[in-house]
């Protein structure tokens, strides 16, 4: 059974300027042990999408439409108690900034005990700490660190602790929102390596949300490109890099610096990402697209299979144009 199936998801925020459609009509699936990379720039809706998968979108935002089937059950229809039990135990999430995700007045060990007790109030301290120690070992942290307070640890360590906390209950799906953005590149490499190991050793499914194509090239099995709140391309990692269909994807690949390559010039896309507080008709990328033509500004392209296993939303591929 497909682990995760998202259908027609819409998330909006009520702001002073009106209704901001942060996520629009998102569809995708994720199988067991698969890693999906969701790539996009700021305000493309990827973080909101991540939060929606746990039904954690903060007000004034809310899910306005769609379904999220986790192991066959629509988590948007769950009552609070069952939702609470799903979070942490089936789906878990780590965020960008580990500095603020830990309670500064609690020891690391306490964090783990709390997490375990949230789902099993009768769990014994000793057992909880033992389990924590084991998982920390797999993450490369010595168990005596459990007696430390967060401020005594470095950024990379805190992020590893966050990963440990999110995995302590053996969830099937881990959502990581920009997990390495605030870390230095050397530590980032360590964390990515770690995530890759965990993928295989724990049979973990992952959704990796990031703006960095380099990261997903290493860790993801398939990639979804998000722009202006919508998914515009979805395919296997190799396919996306070899044969990108959506113009934004093509440009994105050109402007990601590749220090292993010989080229010495960087590209950019004129204009800037759209402000979603104003409704945009047609394709959201039309304003910056080098291949824009008539239908682009009028009609929203729908995400369809252009080739088997390769979906794109672009009028260029509508009925024999390209």
């Amino acid at each position, binding site marked *: 059974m497909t682990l995760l199936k998202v259908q027609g998801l819409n998330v909006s*925020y009520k*702001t*002073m300027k009106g209704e*901001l459609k942060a996520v629009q009509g998102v569809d995708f699936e994720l199988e067991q042990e698969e890693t999906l990379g969701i790539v996009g720039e700021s305000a493309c809706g990827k973080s909101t999408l991540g939060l929606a998968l746990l039904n954690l979108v903060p007000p*004034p935002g809310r899910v306005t439409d769609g379904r999220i089937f986790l192991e066959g059950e629509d988590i948007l229809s769950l009552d609070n108690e069952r939702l609470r039990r799903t979070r942490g135990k089936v789906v878990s999430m780590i965020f960008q900034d580990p500095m603020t995700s830990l309670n500064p007045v609690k020891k690391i060990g306490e964090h783990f005990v709390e997490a375990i007790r949230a789902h099993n109030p009768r769990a014994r301290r000793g057992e909880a700490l033992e389990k924590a120690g084991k998982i920390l070992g797999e993450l490369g942290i010595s168990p005596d660190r459990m007696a430390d307070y967060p401020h005594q640890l470095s950024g990379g360590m805190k992020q590893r602790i966050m990963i440990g906390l999110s995995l302590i209950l053996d969830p099937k799906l881990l959502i990581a929102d920009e997990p390495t953005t605030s870390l230095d590149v050397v530590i980032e490499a360590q964390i990515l390596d770690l995530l890759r190991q965990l993928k295989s050793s724990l049979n973990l499914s992952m959704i990796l949300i990031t703006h960095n194509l380099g990261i997903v090239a290493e860790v993801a099995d398939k990639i979804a490109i998000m722009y202006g709140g919508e998914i515009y391309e979805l395919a296997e990692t190799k396919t996306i890099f070899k044969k990108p269909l959506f113009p934004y994807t093509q440009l994105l690949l050109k402007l990601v610096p590749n220090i292993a390559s010989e080229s010495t010039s960087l590209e950019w896309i004129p204009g800037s990402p759209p402000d979603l507080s104003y409704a945009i008709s047609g394709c959201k990328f039309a304003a910056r697209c080098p291949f824009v033509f008539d239908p682009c500004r009028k009609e929203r392209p729908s995400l369809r299979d252009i080739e088997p296993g390769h979906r794109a939303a672009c009028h260029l591929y509508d009925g024999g144009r390209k």
Partner: protein
Amino acid sequence: MKKESDSRIRPAINFFFTLPKFGTGGVMVVIGAAIVIILVAMTILSPFITPHSPIQLSVGPADAAPSLSFPMGTNRLGQDIFSRMIAGGSTMMEVAGLAVAICFLIGVPLGLLAGYSRRLIDGPLSLLMDSLYAFPGLVLAIAIAAVLGRGVVNLAIAIAVVYIPTYFRVIRSQVLTMKEMPFVEAVKVEGGGTLNILFRQIFPNVLPSVAVIASINVADAVITEAGLTYIGLGVNAALPDWGFDIYYGYQSLLAGAWWTMLFPGLMVVLLAGGFTFIGEGLSEVLNPRLRR
């Protein structure tokens, strides 16, 4: 192009009308401002609108219940309470207004100074302010008022001294955070001096919180003034004053004349409440929680 000569009033009025757009905070500010403006206008116009003279004795029977000729009844001295309510806010407003002005002129610069300077200046200042802050407000105000004596200015000073530490603390802590911000350092690198940094860079950013404190301050000052008057440390008893009426109405209350205390009490609550609404509303409007 920036139009330097544009009047400031029009934008200010427009600002008020756009406030409800800011949600509950905006509505609170508008309600509070409306209450305050009405009360202040009423007080200013009192010489022209009071049906009877507020200070004349025996315009009616003593402790008479509310009636058509005396909508709020009379007090023990036979004075018309309704007229006294219309006119009785002036002392309170003067004292509260003066107190806030003193707090602003002393508390803000000291807060800026302490936040920006090194320990040599900040240390003693903070110590002084913390000591003042440690005193229970009303007790301190009473003590100072007792020493200084009656009078609008003295009362204002007594209230101001109690409140200055609050301004000081809030501003100092904001300055401490702000002076580390890149835009302050940028000014240094551009060649700007300390004075410019304090007044042109930091102060405008601190102003919103000052506005919030000031509103609550006025509300508090109003109640303190009423309290001080109640215990006899207020201003000249000859002038109509809500606080005084509450004090004096106590005796009538025992005789069953509830209107002698209720109405002045309500007026104080209304004025203080109006300012509180402004302060709380402003605080919510300026709170970045509203933005995404």
